[in-house]
C-alpha cells in the first residue's frame, strides 16, 4: 500500500549522498539516475496498486483510496517529466545531486498531501512539499533572478503556511479533532457563534490553499516566481505543487467542510471566474514565454476551481468533481511538458521574449510542433485531452443544483474561447512568422522525449477518453465515499 511513498522517501534521502560517488570522468554522476529510478518504481507501483490495491487507512489519517492513487500517479508523472528534462537542464551544474534529492523530497510532500485525511498530516505534507521547492527555486546560486524569485516565493509561501496553521487550529478549536471525517460530523451540528468561527476557518483555508493553487487574489507571486525560477522547477511548481494543493483542497472542502451550513460554493464560483478571466486577460499581454505560461496556468486553475464550486450535480453524479480531476490530469501533463519545452528553448536561445519564438517551426521543428499540441490542448480544442475535461467541468456547472451554474459555464466558455487568442498568437509566431536567424537549433533528447511522451498522452486521452473518464469518476466517488454515487 505504501510502496510509492516509501520508495520516494528512500530514494529521496539516498540521492543527495549518491552525488558524492563519482565514477571516472562522468560529470553527472549516478544521482540523477538514482532519482529517476525511484520515480519510475514509485509510478509503476502506483499504477499497479491503482488496479489491484484496495482502499485502506493507516493510522487513521493516511488515506489510501483511488483518489490518492490518482493524484499520486499524476504528481509522480509530473515529477518524472521534470526529472528527465533536468538531466539536460542541470548538466554541468555542481548542485545536480541535491537538486534531484530535493525534487524527490518535494514530490514526497505532494503525494503525502494527496493521501492525508488528517489536518496534521496534511500540514506535514504541505511543508515537506514547500521547503524543498524554496531551495530548488534558488538552486542557480549565481543567478540573481533565481534568488529574487526564491525570496518572493518563500515569503508568500510562508504566509500561506501560517494561514493554514491558523485554519487548522481554528478547526480543531471548534470541533476538537483533526481528522477530516470527524470534523465533518461535528461541523454539521454547529449553531450560532461557532458557525462564524467555522466561516473564518474556511476563509483561512481558502487563503492558505489559494496561494499555492494560484487563484485570484492570491496569484501575484506566480509570474515572478515562474519566470525567475529555473524553468524545470517552474514546471514542478506549476503542475506539481499546484495540483497537490488542489488535492488537499478537495479533501478538506469536500470531505470536511461540505457539512457546514455555509454557502461557500457560490464564493468559489466567483473566485473561479475571477481567476480564469484575470489569467486569460493578463496572458494576452505578456512578452515572455514563461510569464505567458504562468498566467495561462492561473487561468487553468480557474477551470479546476469550478470542480470545487459544483462538486455535485443535479443527478447526484459528481460530474463537476470528476471533470475537475480529469482536468488536473490533463493540465498536469500538458503544462509540465509546456514548461519543459520552454526550458528547451530557453537553454538554446539567448532571450526569453516571445520574439525568440518567431519562426521556431523552422529552427526547432519538434519543439514547435509539440508546443502547438500543448497549446491547442490547453485551449480545449477537440479531440485533444483538454477538451473533454473542460466539457465535463462546464457540463457539471450547468447540471448543478445551483441557479448560477449556467452563468458560470458561460463565463468559463467565453474564457476558453478568448484564451485561443494568445495561444493562437504564439502558434502564429512559431509557424507563420520569419525567424531572426534561420539556423537549426539542436533539440536535446532529454526534452524531446518528455514532449513526445506528453503529446502521445494528449492524443491517447483525447481520442479515447472513456477509460480515463471512468477512472476520474471512480476517483471522485472514492473522495465522496461513504456517500454513494
Amino acid at each position, binding site marked *: 500500500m505504501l510502496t510509492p511513498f516509501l520508495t520516494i522517501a528512500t530514494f529521496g534521502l539516498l540521492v543527495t549522498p549518491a552525488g558524492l560517488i563519482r565514477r571516472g570522468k562522468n560529470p553527472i554522476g549516478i544521482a540523477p539516475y538514482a532519482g529517476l529510478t525511484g520515480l519510475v518504481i514509485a509510478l509503476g507501483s502506483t499504477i499497479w496498486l491503482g488496479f489491484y490495491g484496495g482502499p485502506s487507512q493507516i493510522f487513521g489519517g493516511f488515506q489510501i483510496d483511488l483518489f490518492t492513487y490518482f493524484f499520486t500517479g499524476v504528481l509522480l508523472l509530473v515529477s518524472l517529466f521534470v526529472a528527465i528534462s533536468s538531466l539536460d537542464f542541470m548538466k554541468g551544474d555542481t548542485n545536480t545531486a541535491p537538486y534531484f534529492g530535493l525534487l524527490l523530497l518535494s514530490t514526497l510532500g505532494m503525494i503525502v498531501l494527496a493521501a492525508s485525511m488528517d489536518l496534521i498530516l496534511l500540514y506535514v505534507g504541505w511543508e515537506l512539499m514547500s521547503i524543498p521547492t524554496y531551495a530548488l527555486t534558488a538552486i542557480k546560486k549565481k543567478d540573481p533572478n533565481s534568488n529574487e524569485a526564491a525570496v518572493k516565493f518563500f515569503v508568500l509561501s510562508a504566509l500561506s503556511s501560517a494561514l493554514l496553521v491558523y485554519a487548522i487550529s481554528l478547526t480543531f478549536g471548534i470541533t476538537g479533532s483533526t481528522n477530516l471525517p470527524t470534523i465533518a460530523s461535528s461541523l454539521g451540528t454547529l449553531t450560532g457563534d461557532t458557525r462564524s468561527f467555522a466561516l473564518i476557518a474556511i476563509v483561512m483555508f481558502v487563503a492558505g490553499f489559494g496561494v499555492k493553487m494560484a487563484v485570484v487574489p492570491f496569484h501575484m507571486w506566480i509570474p515572478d516566481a515562474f519566470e525567475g525560477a529555473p524553468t524545470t522547477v517552474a514546471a514542478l511548481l506549476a503542475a506539481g505543487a499546484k495540483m497537490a494543493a488542489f488535492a488537499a483542497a478537495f479533501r478538506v472542502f469536500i470531505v470536511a467542510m461540505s457539512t457546514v451550513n455555509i454557502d461557500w460554493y457560490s464564493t468559489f464560483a466567483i473566485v473561479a471566474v475571477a481567476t480564469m478571466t484575470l489569467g486569460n486577460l493578463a496572458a494576452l499581454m505578456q512578452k515572455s514565454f514563461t510569464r505567458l505560461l504562468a498566467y495561462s496556468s492561473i487561468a487553468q486553475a480557474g477551470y479546476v476551481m469550478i470542480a470545487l464550486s459544483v462538486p455535485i450535480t443535479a443527478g447526484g453524479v459528481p460530474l463537476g468533481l470528476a471533470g475537475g480531476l480529469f482536468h488536473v490530469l490533463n493540465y498536469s501533463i500538458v503544462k509540465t511538458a509546456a514548461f519543459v519545452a520552454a526550458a528547451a528553448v530557453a537553454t538554446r536561445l539567448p532571450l526569453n521574449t516571445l520574439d525568440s519564438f518567431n519562426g521556431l517551426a523552422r529552427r526547432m521543428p519538434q519543439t514547435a510542433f509539440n508546443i502547438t499540441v500543448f497549446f491547442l490542448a490547453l485551449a480545449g480544442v477537440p479531440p485533444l485531452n483538454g477538451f473533454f475535461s473542460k466539457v465535463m467541468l462546464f457540463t457539471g456547472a450547468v447540471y448543478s443544483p445551483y441557479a448560477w451554474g449556467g452563468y458560470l459555464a458561460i463565463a468559463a466558455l467565453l474564457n476558453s474561447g478568448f484564451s485561443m487568442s494568445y495561444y493562437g498568437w504564439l502558434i*502564429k509566431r512559431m509557424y507563420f512568422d520569419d525567424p531572426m536567424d534561420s539556423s537549426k537549433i539542436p533539440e536535446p533528447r532529454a526534452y524531446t522525449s518528455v514532449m513526445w511522451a506528453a503529446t502521445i498522452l494528449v492524443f491517447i486521452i483525447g481520442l479515447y477518453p472513456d477509460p480515463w473518464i471512468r477512472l476520474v469518476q471512480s476517483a471522485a466517488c472514492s473522495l465522496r465515499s461513504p456517500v454513494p454515487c
Partner: protein
Amino acid sequence: MAIPTFLLGKRRAGLAKILGIGTTAAVFGVSLVIVGLFQYGNPNFQLTDTANWASTFGLNYIVGVDGISLPLLILAALLCLLAAAGSRDMISIKQPEYYALFLVFETGIIGVFTSLNLILFYVFWEIVLIPMFFFIGIWGGPRRKYASLKFLIFTYAGSAIMLFGFIALYAWTGSQGAPSFDYSTLLTRAANLTMPLQVAASLATFVGFAVKLPIFPLHTWLPDAHVEAPAPVSVLLAGLLLKMGGYGLIRYNLLLFPAADKLLWPVFTAIGLITMVYGASVAFVAQDMKRMIALTSVNHMGYVLLGTFTLGSIGVSAAVFQMFAHGLAVGMLFLMSGYIHEHTGTRNINELHGLRGKMPRTTLLLILASMAAMAVPGFANFISEYQVIQGALSANYLFGFAILAPALTVGYFFWMLRRVVMTPAEGPKNEIHLHSQLILTAFLVPLLVFGIYPAPLLGSAIKPTVDHLLGVLFPGGK
C-alpha cells in the same frame, strides 16, 4: 457511413500529392456508393453506424445521413476532390503537410455533416478549424497572418458559445431520463423545455452557426480569410465551411427548439434579409475579384438563413438546396480566380482587361459560373433562390424586399464581367491548362443537371425529410 471518416482518420499521416488527391477521389467514390445505397423518400436517418466512444459521459459515436445531410455530403466529397485536384498547380511549398492537413480537414467536414451526437459534432466542427488556420497562415497571401488569426479567434469564440448551447441541452434535459448528447434523444426532449430555456439554447447555438455562416455583423473575418487563403482553400472555405453554419442552423436551431423558432423567426429572417442585401451591396465596391466572390458568399448565405426560418417546407428545402448549389458555384468562381491570378498576375477587377482575348475558354467558364451565381434559370441556383423567396413570400409579404438581393447580385456580376471581359485585350494569348479547364467544367455539370432536373435531389431526398421533420415539429402548421 463511417467509411469515409475512418478511411481518412487512418490515413492522415504525411502524404504526398498523389496520395492526397487519390484519397479524396476514393472518398468521393464512397460517397457515390452512399448516394446509391440511400433510400429516397425515406425521411429518417439511414446507413447509421454506432459505436461506444466515451459513453460514460454520453459521448457516443453515431453517424448517419438523411435527406438534409446527403446533398452536403456529396458536395463535401466532390469539392474536396476538385479542390485537391486544383491544388496541384497552386500549392508548391510544403506539399506533404498541405495534403495531410487537407485530409484532416476532409475528415472533419464529412464528420460534421454526418455525426448524430452533439459532442461528436463539435469535435468534427473543431477539427475543421485547425487545418484551415494553418492553410491560411502558411500558404496564404500577403496578409495571411492577420487573416488566419482573425479567422481562428472569431470562429473559436463562436463555437465556444455554441458549445454552451450543447452542454446546456444535456443538463436541462437531464430530468427527462438519463442525460444524453445523442441527437435523436434530444430531438424528442428539447421540445419539452420551457420557453426561456429553449430561447437561451437556441441563441447560444445560433451565435456559433452565425459566425460560420456568416451573418451580418459577424462576417468580418470572412473577406479577409477568403482573400488571403490560397484559391483551393477558398473553395473549401466558401464551399464547405460556410455550409457547416447553414447545416447547423437547420439541424440544431430549427429542429430542436420549435417554441423558440416561433418566437425568434422574425428576428432571424430579418438578419438573413439584411445579410443578403448587405453582402450584395458591399460586393459592388470590391476591387479584388476574390473579395467580390467572398462577399457573394455573404449575400448567398443570407438566403439560407432566410429560407430556414420561414419555417415552411419550401423555404427549408430550398435552403438546403441553396447550400448545395452555392457551394458548387462559388467553388468554381474561387478556383477560377486562382487560375486567373496565376496567369495574369493580378486579381484586381480594374486591371484585368480583355480577358476574352487572352483566355477565351476561361472567359466562357467565368461567364457560366457568374450566370450560376446570378441564379440564371437553368442553373441549380435559380431553383433554390426562387424557392427561398417563394417560401419567404408565403410566410409574409414583407419579404418581397428579398427580391432586391438577386437584382443587386446580377448588377455587380454584370459590372465585373463588363470590366473584365468586354474590354480590349492587351498582350498575347495565355490560356490555362486543359486539365484546369476540365476541373472547372466538373463544377458546372451538377449545377446544370440539377438546375434542369432537380427532382432526384430536391424532390426525393431533401423534401421528404424536411416535410417529415417539420410535420413533427409544428403539428398544426406554423
